[in-house]
Every structure is written in structure tokens, then in C-alpha cells.
């Protein structure tokens, strides 16, 4: 308990900007919203008065159906009008705030570096964009209106109570701090549980997500029961937390109703005493009872809304943390016309504590072909990420034509650099859109890329050709077809430098040979850097780099390496038996 007490204020301090600051640009909308809410609520208080005056008129014998009906209907219609306007405004304002917030978030996310997205859990970003925005939406649509109109009623009723009889009024108003205190304590405890429950829900979602993404493996291994057990554990935990939240909440309403009833009892006992002693009129006594009824509901509402506000504040804290991240700044001014002269000096890259690339020195001549080979987890892919600016070196310099990557305009840099990733990444659009992913692609370069990637026959065999759509995870295509579409995507921008990450792993030898020939023929000036497992295919390359555990063990032509590097020879020998059959 103490623990949570000390945590409380700290957390608040960390929550960052107030959620109300979010509403500034919408002050006009919010003003209208509050105005409509106050008008419709205020007019609602008028109805009892109308009825009262109707009864009085009848007692006085001046009752007229026509006047009472006209007045009544006019007021009711005005209330209807304002409450319709209020609810339209509620929807409009909240959806608008939500949409704008999502746009801002998406915009911010789209400007982050690859490293950031990699370290931040994408599922967290997804939460930011969906449930966190939803809880802010709820705040705008429900909390603001409820709190303003509740405060309005509480203050109004309190003033009336005090003006009738301040002693009894103060006693009745004592329920406000009691109810408020109960809310404060219960919600304080519940908030700790809410946090826990959020963690459990995250856990639950993770199990669900993995069971969907890994569906095929689960079916091969027949581990459905295992997954169900994992899920059941999380689900059970979620139920338990839900039940403990319930146990706390179950106290809330009874205590409040009981307190209110006690206040009513006080009015009866004390007020009855005053009336009997002649200190108070019977009418005032009756009014006290009705104002008490009026007072309780808004206090309840504020209590519940405080929870909505707390959740929205926490969500906004997470969101604004994201929104306040610095953009990756575009300070490059140079037009990149990469020749392919690449120079790396003393480059180190760490992932957390762990060094991935150590003291890399490397130079690549324009128009040359370089192969990178090495065992699994040697840092080959990271080397390509470095060359494409996806990650930045922790120390050392990397230059293209003597300039570092961030000196170039990123737009023009990426127009000259093509990257074929190792894993198949296809978007849920047509094949054409997947290949012409960069917007600068012309029809001519599209055709050339398709021919080079040996996709022409395949495209022609599809009934809808290039317009065939790729389902989300590209399941309807074979591994090699996906890989070749990725190659076509990289070639379609007419790059000067092409990075291939284990491109040939899923393409058969025959096709691979043809593709490599096609590249040489159709893109003669291309500087090629290729991560590969097969030496035979790259024996004639100008440079072969042997990477092991993040270090360059040897670099040179095939001949040189065969004479100088025992590790290279070892790898070569492991493939020798097959080299006869390489096509």
C-alpha cells in the first residue's frame, strides 16, 4: 500500500502535458459543445418549474390546457434541438480530435528512424494508434460534457441549499467530500489493478498474436493444446484481476447510495426537528429532499468521469511521449549521383551492449562487384543496413563519393540505391504497385526490371498479369517468386548501387545465373554489393569480403583469398563438392 502511495505523485509528474492542452486547437468546437450541453441541461431544470406552475395555476383556478401545452412543447422542442446539437457536436469533436491525433501520430512514426521502429515494439505503436486514441476520444465525447454539466448542477444545488438553511445545507453538503473520498480511495486502488490488467491484456494479446502468426508451425507440430494452455494461463489471470477490480468496485455504489440515504435521514431527523420547532417551513423541508436527489447523480458522474480522465491522461502521456520525439532531421543538401565509390573507415556498430560490426575498413570501386560471405550471424545483413543508412555507425565514417549519407538529400540518395532484402516483404497491393513502390519509376524501367528479374513469363501466366493482387503475407506466391518481385522493385528505380541480401537463397540456380547475366547486360554500370552463401557464383567478382563475428577476416579477389585466408579455403572446400554442378 505504502508502495503505491509513494508511486502515485511520481507517476503524475511523469504524465507530461495535461490532456487539456490537446484541446486548444479545438477550443471553438469544445466551446459550442459545452454551450449546447449547458443549454439543454439548464432547460431541463425548467421542466419541474413548468409543472409546478401548472399545478399552482390549477389550484388558483386559472389552468389553461393551451398555454401549458404550448409552453411545454416549445421548451421540450428547444431541449430536443440542443441535445441533438450537443450529441452531433460530441461525435464530431471527438472523432475529429481522434482522427487528427492519429494523423499526427502516423506522421511522426513515419519520420522515425529504422532503429527506433526496431527497438520500439510495433505492437506498442499499434496500441498508441488504436486504444490510446480511443480513450482520448471517450474523454472528449463523454467526460468534458458530463463534468461541466455536473459541476453546474452541483454548484447550483449547493447555493440553493445554503440559501434555504445553511446549517442543514452544510450537513447535506458533507456528502460531497465523503463520496469524493470514497471514489478517491477506491479508484486509487483500482488504478494499480488497472495497470496490472493492462499488462495481462498485453500478455494475452501477445499469445493470441503469436498463435495467429505462427498458425502453420502450430499445426505442423500439433501444439494447439500447448498454445491453449499458455492462453488459458493469461486468460485466467485476466479473469482474476477482473474479479479483484470488481470486489473493489462493488463497494463503491452501495457506499455512495448509503451516504446519500444517510443525508436524507439527517434531513428527516434534523429538518423534522426544525419544522416541529418552527425554524423551517414544510415547503423548504420538501425542497431539501428534492435538491438532495439532484445533488447525488452529478457527484457520481464526476467520480466515474475522473476515471475516464485518468485513463485518457495516461494514454495522452504515452502519445505525447511519441509526438515529442525529435524527427530524423533532413539536413542533407547534396544531390546524390552515386558513382559507387564507397569508403568505410573504422566503423563500429553496437546493438545495445553487443558489438555487431567491429573496426570495419572497406572500399568499393565504382562499377565493381563485391561479395560478402561469412557464417550465420556474422553481421552481413547489418553491413548492408549500414550501407543503406537504415542504421548508423557508433563510430567511424562511411562515405559515398567522399560524402556521408546524411549530407545527401535522402530522396535523391534512395533513388540511386536499390536494396533487395533477405526476407520477403510484399505489401497488400497489386504486383505492379509492389514493384513500382518508389514513385519515380517509369513504365520503361518497370519493363526492364521485370525482364531482368525473369518475371516476364510468370507475369504473363497470371490472368490479371501485373495487376494481380498480393494477399497480405504474400501466401499465394512461392518464396522464389516473392524474392524476384523484391529484386524487380529494387531495379525499377534504376539504381547506381544495388545491395543484395542473400538474394539467391530461394531462387534456383538456373534462374539465378540468368538473372545475374541480365543485370550485367541491362545495368552495366551498376555497383553491386551482394551478401551470399555461394562462392562459385562470385568467384570472378572484383572483391570478396569474408566477415566473421562482425570483423573482416579477409578481403580480396577469390585467388588472393585462396592463398591467404585459411577460413576462406575452409568455406570454399565445404562447397567444393558442389561447385561442379553450379550452373
Amino acid at each position, binding site marked *: 500500500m505504502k508502495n503505491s502511495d509513494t508511486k502515485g505523485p511520481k507517476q503524475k509528474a511523469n504524465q507530461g502535458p495535461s490532456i487539456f492542452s490537446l484541446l486548444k486547437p479545438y477550443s471553438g468546437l469544445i466551446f459550442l459543445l459545452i454551450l449546447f450541453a449547458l443549454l439543454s441541461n439548464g432547460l431541463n431544470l425548467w421542466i419541474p418549474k413548468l*409543472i409546478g406552475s401548472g*399545478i399552482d395555476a*390549477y389550484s388558483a383556478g386559472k389552468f389553461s390546457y393551451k398555454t401549458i401545452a404550448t409552453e411545454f412543447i416549445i421548451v*421540450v422542442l428547444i431541449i*430536443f434541438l440542443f*441535445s*441533438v446539437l450537443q450529441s452531433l457536436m460530441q*461525435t*464530431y469533436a471527438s472523432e475529429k480530435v481522434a*482522427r487528427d491525433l492519429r494523423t499526427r501520430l*502516423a*506522421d511522426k512514426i*513515419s519520420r522515425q528512424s*529504422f532503429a527506433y521502429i526496431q527497438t520500439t515494439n510495433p505492437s506498442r*505503436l499499434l496500441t498508441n494508434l*488504436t486504444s490510446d486514441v480511443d480513450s482520448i476520444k471517450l474523454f472528449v465525447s463523454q467526460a468534458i460534457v458530463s463534468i461541466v454539466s455536473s459541476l453546474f448542477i452541483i454548484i447550483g444545488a449547493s447555493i440553493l441549499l445554503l440559501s434555504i438553511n445553511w446549517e442543514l445545507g452544510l450537513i447535506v453538503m458533507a456528502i460531497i467530500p465523503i463520496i469524493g473520498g470514497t471514489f478517491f480511495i477506491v479508484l486509487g486502488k483500482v488504478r494499480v489493478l488497472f495497470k496490472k490488467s493492462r499488462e495481462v491484456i498485453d500478455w494475452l494479446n501477445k499469445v*493470441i498474436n*503469436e*498463435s495467429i502468426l*505462427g498458425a502453420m*508451425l502450430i499445426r*505442423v507440430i*500439433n*501444439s494447439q493444446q*500447448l*498454445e*491453449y494452455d499458455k*492462453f488459458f494461463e493469461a*486468460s485466467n489471470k485476466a*479473469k482474476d484481476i*477482473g474479479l479483484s477490480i*470488481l470486489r473493489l468496485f462493488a463497494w463503491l455504489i452501495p*457506499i455512495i*447510495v*448509503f451516504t446519500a440515504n444517510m443525508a436524507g*435521514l439527517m434531513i428527516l431527523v434534523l429538518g423534522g426537528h426544525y419544522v*416541529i420547532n418552527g425554524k423551517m417551513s414544510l415547503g423548504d423541508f420538501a425542497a431539501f429532499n428534492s435538491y438532495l436527489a439532484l445533488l447525488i447523480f452529478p457527484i457520481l458522474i464526476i467520480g466515474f468521469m475522473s476515471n475516464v480522465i485518468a485513463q485518457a491522461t495516461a494514454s495522452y502521456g504515452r502519445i505525447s511521449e511519441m509526438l515529442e520525439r525529435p524527427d530524423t532531421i533532413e539536413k542533407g543538401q547534396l544531390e546524390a549521383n552515386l558513382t559507387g565509390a564507397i569508403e568505410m573507415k573504422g566503423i563500429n556498430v553496437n546493438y545495445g551492449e553487443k558489438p555487431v560490426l567491429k573496426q570495419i575498413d572497406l572500399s568499393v570501386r565504382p562499377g565493381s562487384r563485391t561479395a560478402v*560471405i561469412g*557464417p*550465420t*550471424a556474422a553481421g552481413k545483413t547489418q553491413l548492408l543496413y549500414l550501407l543503406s543508412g537504415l542504421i548508423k555507425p557508433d563510430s567511424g565514417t562511411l562515405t559515398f563519393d567522399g560524402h556521408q549519407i546524411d549530407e545527401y538529400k*535522402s530522396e535523391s540518395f*534512395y533513388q540511386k*540505391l536499390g536494396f533487395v532484402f533477405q*526476407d520477403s516483404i510484399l*505489401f497488400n497491393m497489386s504486383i505492379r504497385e509492389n514493384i513500382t*513502390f518508389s514513385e519515380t519509376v517509369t513504365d520503361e524501367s518497370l519493363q526492364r526490371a521485370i525482364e531482368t528479374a525473369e518475371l516476364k513469363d510468370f507475369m504473363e501466366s497470371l490472368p490479371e498479369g501485373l495487376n494481380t493482387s498480393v494477399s497480405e503475407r504474400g501466401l499465394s*506466391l*512461392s*518464396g*522464389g517468386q516473392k524474392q524476384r518481385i523484391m529484386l524487380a522493385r529494387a531495379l525499377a*528505380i534504376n539504381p547506381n548501387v544495388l545491395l543484395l541480401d542473400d538474394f539467391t*537463397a530461394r531462387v*534456383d540456380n*538456373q534462374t539465378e545465373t540468368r538473372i545475374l547475366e541480365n543485370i550485367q547486360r541491362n545495368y552495366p554500370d551498376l555497383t553491386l554489393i551482394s551478401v551470399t*552463401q555461394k562462392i562459385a557464383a562470385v568467384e570472378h567478382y572484383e572483391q570478396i569480403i569474408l566477415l566473421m563475428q562482425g570483423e573482416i577476416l579477409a578481403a580480396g579477389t577469390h585467388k588472393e583469398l585462396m592463398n591467404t585466408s585459411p577460413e576462406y579455403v*575452409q568455406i570454399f572446400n565445404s562447397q567444393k*563438392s558442389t561447385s561442379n*554442378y553450379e*550452373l
Partner: protein
Amino acid sequence: MNYNLNSIAEQEKKSSSWTGLKNLLNLVAEERKRIFLSLSAILVSASLNLLGPFLIGYTIDHYVQTGKYHGVLVFAGILLAMYSVAFVSSYLQTQWMGGVAQRAIFKLRNVIFNKIQQLPVAFFNENKAGDLISRVNNDTDKLSQFFSQALMQFISSIITMIGSGVFLLSINIKLGLATLVPALVILVFTRSVSPWVRKRNALSLKSSGGLSAEIQESLNNFKVIIAFNRRDYFRKKFDVANQHNYKTAMGTGMANNMFLPVFGLFSALAQLIVLSYGIYLITESEFSIGLLVSYLAYSTNFYNPLRQLAALWTSFQVALAGWDRISRMLSLQSNLEVTDSTPAKASESLLEFRNVHFGYTSSNEILHNVNFKLEKGKTYALVGPTGGGKTTTASIMARLYDPVSGVILLDGKDIKSYTPEERSKKIGFILQEPFLFTGTVRENILYGNEQYHESDQENFLAIIKATGLEGLLSVFDDGAETKVLSSGDSLSLGQRQLIAFMRAVLRKPDLLILDEATANIDTITEKLLGEILDKLPEETTLVIIAHRLNTIENADEIFFVNSGEVTRAGSFQEAMDKLIHHKRKS
């Protein structure tokens, strides 16, 4: 079977709110006793609370006005006792009813998850992962909100309404009926717009599912977005989805918020009816002023919960829309049934394909009349150009799909007659795209392994040594205890393939299928893998799909897979010739 949830939606006719409610209540059918108890608690506290004002009024009339303070104190005591009882019963009511709701949601979640586990791979091919995840997480959440918050209010509102209704009708039937006319209008109004409102809510849920799917796709593919300088792609795609979501959400919000003003309007009209008709009845001497005042109170008591019901109705509609989407999923059945074991069809081979035809969709056949046999203890290679049908053939061997026609015999029996346990024990399949679970490398290697799954670190290392796998662990920073974060993104593709390899080998299957399982592993490590495969028990049958020829040159037999046909290549050389000379027809 059609597994596409979104296309099923269009065929199906909408169920009414009422049947939807009945289905929802089926979820809590087992809790009758609890529900009954909490209903009685609600009844007790509601009637005590309705009785309170009456007693206060009585006290005022009989004691305050007559100055008998002693009587006031006596009634105060009675009220105190009543309030205390109401206090306890309303606590119990929340506790019991809330418990019912929590358990209902618990049950529902488990049922959904269980259903997903039962569905075959085809289901996951036809639905977007993001959409499925949103269905399970989001829609269940909407239902759980309904159960945990709205349901109780729903019930107590209805009880208060019925109580007040009874009072209204029993005091004066004519005025009572007149007072209830606006309620009838509300009922008709609600009934007629509900289907439309629900449709709107379903649309809104669908578009937020689409939004999630959009975000997920872009975030997972972020490196392509950067490397092709298409940061604007994410923004544009997202903007479209966001704008669409905004429009549907706006329409839905308007539809949902429409109830409250309408309910307010009619409840105010009810008061007007009470007032004017009541006064008319008074002039006819059928009614009294005092009764009119309490009548006004009771009509407020009747219409206020109705207004609350309007708000609840919205969350009910949202819950029903969610329930529709969920029950569509629950109605699906696996098309991979286990049939009765047919008598052995005299086949000595471990696995045999007899006249197998297959297509993912009925219009597009991928495998045409495939026949082959795999003998025990032999190594087979499937070679052929990309897209020729190798992976499809392998998937059918592991019964991820059933053939459209033809039979697959495993140990002489139809593969359909094996239970999934028996089948997965016999057949190991290393998939082209390795999948890892969050956890450690060790946990992933032992995943689903009944024999070893309880091994601790030391035991595990002993097992690894005995199988000759210890050399493979060295590529992981912390060996077997290396952490695997968010589905394996922290490891390289080669590392993930190694884990999948070890996972399959440790299960000691009779038939082990390797589908490009070592494509991204360097040749030295791959040699090690070859040695490990050699050490497997002699009767293990291997099926290897690979593009690297060295991985298949030791095969006892080679099958050439092209254009949906599987033919036997007599020798390695013949397979080579076919690879070189046969033009790909796919």
C-alpha cells in the same frame, strides 16, 4: 469451405437483436443460480429504495406535520435498518452479477481461442492477420465492456422500470396507459432503427480492423519504406484508412447518439400527458392533486431508466456487432476431419500419394494427378524451378491441406484417419519461413516437444550434446538462454532457421521434411547440419527441398517437381538435365 470472414459476412442474413441477446445469454446459461441470486438482491435493494421516499412522505404527513418528534425518530430507525439492508444487498448484487459477467467473458475468450486453434492453415491464408487479431482482441473487449459494465445497469434499469410501471398502472389504469404511450413510440422507434444502427456499428468495427491491419503491415515492413524513400507511403495509406475510419465512426457515432435526445423528448412528452390528462381527470373527480405529484415522480422513475437504457442500448448494439463478427468465426469448422481408420491398403511405403489433385481455390489446380512413394529410411530430394509446386506438395504430405481428390497413405493407412497427435509425431516439417515465439532459444527448441519439454538448462544441454546439436548453439550470444524478442525479430534469418532445425530434429519424426530449411545458413554450418541428419535413426525418411545442389546430391532418389507434376528423376544427372533444359512453365 469458405474461410474468408469478410465474404461470409455478406452472404449471411442479419440476426435480430433479440436472437443476438438470446445467444449472448447462452454464454451465462450455466450460472442460473448466481443470476437468480443477484436478481433477487437487485429486487430487494430496488424495492427498498422505492419504498424509502414513500416512508419519508408518510413520516412527514403523520409525524412532522403533527409535531410528534418521537415518531420521526422511530421511522428514522426503521429507515436506517432498511438502508443497511439495501447497502448489503446492493453490494452482493454487484459482486454476484459482476462475477457472472467476468466468467462469461473468460469463457467466451477461451471458446474463441480454442476455435482458432481448431481451424486449418487455409483459414489463416484467407484472412489478414491484423484483421484476425483485431477480431479476437477488439471485439471480445467490446463484449467484455458490455458484460462487465452495461449488463448490470441494464437489469436494474429494467427492474426499476417494471416497478414504476406497475405503480403507474395500479394507481389509475387510464392515466397509467396514457403515460405509457410515449414509451410505446420509443419502443417502435428503437426496434425500427436498431438493425440500421447495428449495421453502422459493424461497419465501424470493420473499418477499425482495417486500420489496425494497415498499421501492422506498414510497421512490419518499415525498412522497405525507408530504403525506397516512401515514408509518405505509410502516411498516405494510413490517411486513407484513417479518413475512412473517421467517416464510418462519425456516421456510427451519430446513429448511436441519436437515441438519447429522442428518449428525452418522449419522456418529457409523457410528463405533459400526466400533467394535462391528470388535471383533466381531477376535474372529472377521478384523481387527486397528491396522487398527481407522486404520479409525476413515478413517471420520472419510469422514463429515467429508459433514458439510461438508451445509452446502454448503444453499448448493446456495439456488443452485438462484435458478437456477430465473433460468432461468424465460431461457426467455422475445420475441413480436416479425422475419418475412421480404413483397412490397410497394402502399401509397404511410409508415405504414398495416389492420384492426388490439389488447388488452393477450386478454379486453379496446382497439382495434377501426382503419384509417388517414399520408402522408410531413404532420403528424397524435391527439385524443380521456383513456383513449380514443391512447397505445396510438402504441405500436403504434412496434411496442412487435404487434396481435392486422391489419397495420401501414411504407413498404409489414409492420412485422414490419423489423429493430429499421431500424425505430428510421425511427420516433422521445417517450414520455409521459420516462426519463433517470444521467450528463449531453449524454449523455442523444446517448443511442443512432449518428450523433453520439462528439461531444465543442464538436462537440455545434455540432450543437445547427445543429438550432436551443441555446435549449433554457438551462433547465439548467450547460447540456449539467448532471449527471443517479439517473434524472433531480434535474430537473423539464418539463426531462426537453425532453431527451427533443432526443434524438428529433437522431435525424432519418422518423416522429416525440410523446405528450403537451410537456405540462409552458411555452407560450413550446413555441413554440420548434414552430419546431424546422418546421425538420425536409420529408419528416418528425409524429404529435402533445396536449391543448393550439394544438399540434395546425397539423396537416394530425386523427384522433379514442375508445373504441378511430380516425376521421378533416375539419377542426379538426369535431374540436372531436367533443371537445365526444361523451361519453366509456371
